[in-house]
């Protein structure tokens, strides 16, 4: 059904977006929590920094990533000591996708965390739960819809990431040529509309699936709590 090239791009996309989401989940939750529940000097700065990838054109973000993680970048040189090179690798694509998707994840989770009833957290603490236990057993489960939404949004965003990936990780078939890069290539060639449409549909299908899964999970977690809701 799918051509080998499409397969390759699809698998790569899933890997890249999956790793992007997986790797940014924990820091995403942590940052969302810090931003939702604490005030400290420099909070706005941190908040702004997290939102940067949303604000800048992706190509610029890719370029900035190159500045940081490139061969001559500060972090890049440090990573090179461990023989880790991110540009032109699928890990780099995941980094680009993760960075671009990060603000969406943090925002969604933060919004949900802010909606968690802190009185329940207080009740848990009076029952002897440490802050960490409260977070894991009360806050996080109650913010689950937001976490799922955050994961879904950032998965979708990472899946569709083009500009930053192209700039930072290049468009290497089998390595960094994800679905959007493949799609872009096709679109830029005259007369390949049919191929473009196919790739488009594949992207849509994957995203729809992730959407459905996240909605289903969210609904399930909500249903557990159902009862008298009005």
């Amino acid at each position, binding site marked *: 059904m799918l051509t080998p090239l499409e397969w390759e791009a699809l698998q790569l996309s899933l890997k890249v977006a999956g790793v992007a989401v997986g790797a940014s989940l924990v820091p995403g939750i942590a940052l969302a929590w810090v931003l939702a529940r604490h005030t400290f000097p420099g909070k706005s700065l941190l908040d702004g920094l997290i939102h940067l990838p949303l604000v800048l054109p992706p*190509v610029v973000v890719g*370029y900035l990533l*190159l*500045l940081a993680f*490139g*061969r*001559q970048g500060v972090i890049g040189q440090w990573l090179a000591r461990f023989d880790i*090179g991110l*540009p*032109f690798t699928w890990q780099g694509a995941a980094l680009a996708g993760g960075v671009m998707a990060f603000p969406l994840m943090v925002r969604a989770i933060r919004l949900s965390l802010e909606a968690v009833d802190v009185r329940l957290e207080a009740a848990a603490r009076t029952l002897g739960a440490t802050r960490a236990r409260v977070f894991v057993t009360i806050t996080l489960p109650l913010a689950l819809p937001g976490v799922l939404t955050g994961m879904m949004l950032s998965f979708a965003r990472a899946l569709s990431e083009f*500009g930053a990936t*192209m*700039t930072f990780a*290049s*468009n*290497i078939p089998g390595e960094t040529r994800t679905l959007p890069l493949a799609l*872009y*290539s*096709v*679109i*830029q*060639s*005259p*007369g390949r509309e049919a191929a473009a449409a196919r790739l488009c549909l594949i992207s849509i299908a994957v995203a729809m699936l992730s959407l459905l899964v996240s909605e289903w999970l969210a609904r399930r977690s909500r249903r557990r709590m159902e009862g008298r809701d009005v």
Partner: protein
Amino acid sequence: DSTVHVYAAASLTDAMNDLVKTYEAAHPSVDIVPVYASSSTVARQIANGAPADIYFSANEQWMDWLGKQGVTLTERRDLLKNHLVVIAQKGSQIQSFIPDKDHRLDNYLGRNERVAVGDPDHVPAGIYAKQALTSLDQWQALEPRLARASDVRAAMALVERGEAPLGIVYATDAKASDRVKTLGAFPDGSHPPITYPIAEIGSPDSTTEAFYQWLQGQDAAQVFADYGFGPAKLKQ
């Protein structure tokens, strides 16, 4: 007051900006609006009714494609010519060479190092690079070692930043950057001539026609030359 919309390939940005400035200074009542994007984007926009008076493409394919979309191309010309060159970072140790059958690019690459090019799948410069490398029997070896960028400038940025020790770009690009040096140009026969066709869209008014003619004139040719473009042989 009349306005002329020029839809031009992104690689023409610098030269066109310069020309527009010069022309507007001489014709204060005329407003030239240059619109830059990749040739393909521009072509699509024109096909969908963008208010273009002139289309200035970086390759013939998209001009041809536009013609097939039912857009009237008036007075189509091949105006400019460009070359494909190999570049390296300014301070690079690599000595100049002519990239031909004897000077294989992969010999200049270390482990894990890549050659930056515009994506050979869609970026015109990349397509030319692929054709050149193929005809020089280097494509097979180099294909997996390409760093494909979204456009020529991005490819050059990879060289400027030292991400790739070598890059293949247009001579005009190499000339515009002071952070790369040109190692050598691909032999003329190694790829189809890089021509920049230009055409008026629909039936031009007098202002457009005047500017269009001026672009083909001597003053403009000088500016193009300053930016590294050569004149294309007129082909009717």
